């Protein structure tokens, strides 16, 4: 199948503006006068002036030059880019969910509170924890709050020596960042030859200074930390807490639970695992679950149910809480989608999600093992979980073409690239997470594309190095894009002037 993305020469909407052109006819005078404070009044709005079809066409064209899970395969490792059922979006867009206001009286939002209450119950069951706070608005926010809870816990024991947080060298970069933001020193433990936490190194690391270990399981290599019970014992014996990074929860749903493995604090990425598209910087939700002993430290408010009065309410009366960590009550829309998804799937459905996700990753692993140019750095007879990390090092040795070029060339096949150069412990890493959403045919197509690229690297390296050519735009100046981002019309005009 050949691929060509739409390529419009599309100006910015401001550049399309023609004075006096309108889409909607607005009433001449507002029906009631609103008293806008003087300091908020602007003389000129400088909104673009266009007709409705012009606006629709503009955004349709932009969307055609975009790429998402709805357009094709998106094996971006550790991001769980699964298909998100449209019915979740539809229900989250219902008036009852979408048009409520956080300042409304509790009596008028009982349904919303009930949804949060029930979602919390579901999540405690999935993770094997006592309570969950839905407040945290993203994955890294969840990690950070987990570290604040860790701090509160040790402080409550009058133990102020614990200033170190341990992270494996395969951890997501947000782990050390979250620990550092919470004021901890970060100690990295190496992985062993099996791609798991080196238990001896961990034993040499823990001490009376250990506050917590942050661990992702399955880890970023897609491998299950099979010594987790021993790991938990080592950390607990030293007096530290065990934090579960929920980034890879899709690999164990309904099969095992972080709580059963000995984790004290668990975080979820609802926007990965439970039906909100991940990425794009849009709203996420990174709920935090804790075991009984840590419950009192959870952020306020929690949703409680008053049996006598038969009503739900926000509970702020929690004296040991670390406090408020977000305005209002979390990203409610994301919570709605997650709850709908959980109801749709049910317990068995969630187990099947993991089965299919793991099967798909192992299928890719088996098929790709026979392809010249890619290799596994760890035992290939060791099954992976939801994702697999290949190294393009052999290809780079043979042809000088590494993971970066392979990733760019894949775009020409109408597929999103895997995560590359992560985790850093694998050279020329290609981190592939197919998710449960894909068919066998799609996975075959992907492996075939990687095989073709490896052959092209030998026979026609220029083709690989100049990719992508079938996309709306080719090579971006990535350095310039991150050093001088121009994210608004105002900034664009300023930069053009300056």
């Amino acid at each position, binding site marked *: 199948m050949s691929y060509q993305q739409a390529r419009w020469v599309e100006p910015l909407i401001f550049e399309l503006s023609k004075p006096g052109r309108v889409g909607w006819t607005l009433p001449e005078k507002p029906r009631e006068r609103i008293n806008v404070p003087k300091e908020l009044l602007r003389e000129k709005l400088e909104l673009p002036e266009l007709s409705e079809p012009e606006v629709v066409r503009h955004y349709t064209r932009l969307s055609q030059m975009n790429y998402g899970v709805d357009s094709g395969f998106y094996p971006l490792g550790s991001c769980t880019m699964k298909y998100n059922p449209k019915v979740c979006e539809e229900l989250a867009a219902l008036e009852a969910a979408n048009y409520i206001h956080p300042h409304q009286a509790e009596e008028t939002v009982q349904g919303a509170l009930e949804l949060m209450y029930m979602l919390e119950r579901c999540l405690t069951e999935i993770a094997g924890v006592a309570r969950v706070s839905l407040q945290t608005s993203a994955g890294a926010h969840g990690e950070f709050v987990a570290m604040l809870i860790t701090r509160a816990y040790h402080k409550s024991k009058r133990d102020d020596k614990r200033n170190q947080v341990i992270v494996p060298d395969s951890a997501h970069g947000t782990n050390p960042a979250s620990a550092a933001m919470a004021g901890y020193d970060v100690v990295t433990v190496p992985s062993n030859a099996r791609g798991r936490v080196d238990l001896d190194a961990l034993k040499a690391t823990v001490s009376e200074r250990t506050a917590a270990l942050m661990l992702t399981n399955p880890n970023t290599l897609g491998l299950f930390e099979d010594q987790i019970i021993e790991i938990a014992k080592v950390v607990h014996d030293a007096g530290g807490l065990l934090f579960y990074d929920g980034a890879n929860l899709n690999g164990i749903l309904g099969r095992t639970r972080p709580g059963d493995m000995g984790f004290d604090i668990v975080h979820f990425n609802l926007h990965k695992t439970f039906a909100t598209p991940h990425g794009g910087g849009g709203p996420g939700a990174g709920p935090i679950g804790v075991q009984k002993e840590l419950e009192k430290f959870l952020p306020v408010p929690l949703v409680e149910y008053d049996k006598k009065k038969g009503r739900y309410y926000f509970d702020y009366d929690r004296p040991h809480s670390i406090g408020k960590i977000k305005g209002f009550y979390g990203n409610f829309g994301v919570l709605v989608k997650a709850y709908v998804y959980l109801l749709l799937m049910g317990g068995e459905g969630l187990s099947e999600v993991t089965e299919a996700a793991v099967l798909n990753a192992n299928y890719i692993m088996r098929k790709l093992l026979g392809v010249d140019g890619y290799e596994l750095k760890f035992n290939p007879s060791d099954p992976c979980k939801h994702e697999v990390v290949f190294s393009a090092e052999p290809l780079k040795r043979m042809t*000088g073409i590494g993971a970066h070029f392979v990733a760019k060339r894949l775009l020409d096949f109408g597929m999103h690239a895997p995560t590359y150069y992560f985790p850093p412990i694998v050279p020329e890493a290609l981190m592939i997470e197919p998710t449960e959403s894909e068919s066998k045919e799609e996975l075959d197509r992907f492996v075939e594309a990687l095989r073709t690229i490896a052959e092209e690297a030998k026979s026609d390296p220029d083709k690989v190095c100049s990719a992508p050519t079938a996309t709306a735009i080719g090579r971006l100046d990535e350095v310039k894009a991150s050093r001088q981002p121009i994210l608004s019309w105002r900034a664009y005009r300023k930069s053009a002037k300056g």
Partner: protein
Amino acid sequence: MKKLGLIVNPIAGMGGRVGLKGTDGADTVAKALELGAEPVSPARAVETLQGLKRVGVEFELITYPAEMGATEASEAGLKARVIGHITSGKTTAGDTKRAAGEMLGQGVDLILIAGGDGTMSDVIEAIGTQVPILGIPTGVKMHSATFANTPQTAGEVATRFLSEGLPLREAEVMDINEEAYRENRLVAKLKGYAQVPYEPVMMQATKEGSTGYELADQKAIARWVIELMERERVYALGPGTTTRAVAEELGIYDSTLLGVDLIENYKLLARDTNEQHIIEAIGKKPTTIIVSPIGKQGFILGRGNQQFSSVIIKRVGKGNVWVLATPHKLRATPTLKVDTDDAELDREFQGYIRVITGYRQTCMVKVV
């Protein structure tokens, strides 16, 4: 127009295929030839030069006669200005040094050097860090951080350096004792530092790096080390750029790169000390030794910093040895080694040691 120097060590790499582990010394060259070794360096240099020609960047190529560059340049179809004199077929280390010195005199912007660790050592002996160099990997031993990954990438790095410019960084020039290496003993020596174009993906020593912000990482390490420093305590800084960053962060700009400097109360106490100096200077004062591993080899004590004798290390205590390394250096150095004159002390260091890798960041690394 930019000026590019080219030095080919035509005999580099000959010992490799015939199992001689190197080609240093006239006797080895003779032996390699006897074993049927064929030159490898010239052909690889031509590969680099062809890449340069294809891209079509404008530069003046200055090189040495015959097989030391002129032949390779013409084979690649590049015009070159040839300087100096050699006896073709009998080139020596002296020729390499002279060539480097004369190119410095010609004001070249970069010297491409086809060779191995031995060639690199010869070059920096002649010109130090006065001119940036870039290694085309053609030797047997290539432990120095001056080499590009392949001859082709050497061409690409050189092209980028000449056309758009690249930042420079100091890279370690290593050599290992071939005599010992042939007897399966690894005796690595830090010969010094060279200026090389900084290109994190295509250069050998940094190929594992993901962030690659070496200087920023060193600065972060230095900041934390200084926060950890106590008054009335001597800090003995071993060789290397990472430890030097600590001195610089303290405002000490005349610390030595290859020697051991002592610091007390945030001030330079003694510079470029030997074992005896150190023993006298620290007396009974509490002391901390600060070292950085030799890239790839991983030696933290006993190589390149023999000033820290076993007597001094024992006196200071294992717990007072701080090891500093940037994350990307660690990635190229998976395990650490200690090789002092005291086997028992070496054993004491075995196991896991905490390495300072950033500001308030450490990493556990195995000492084998």
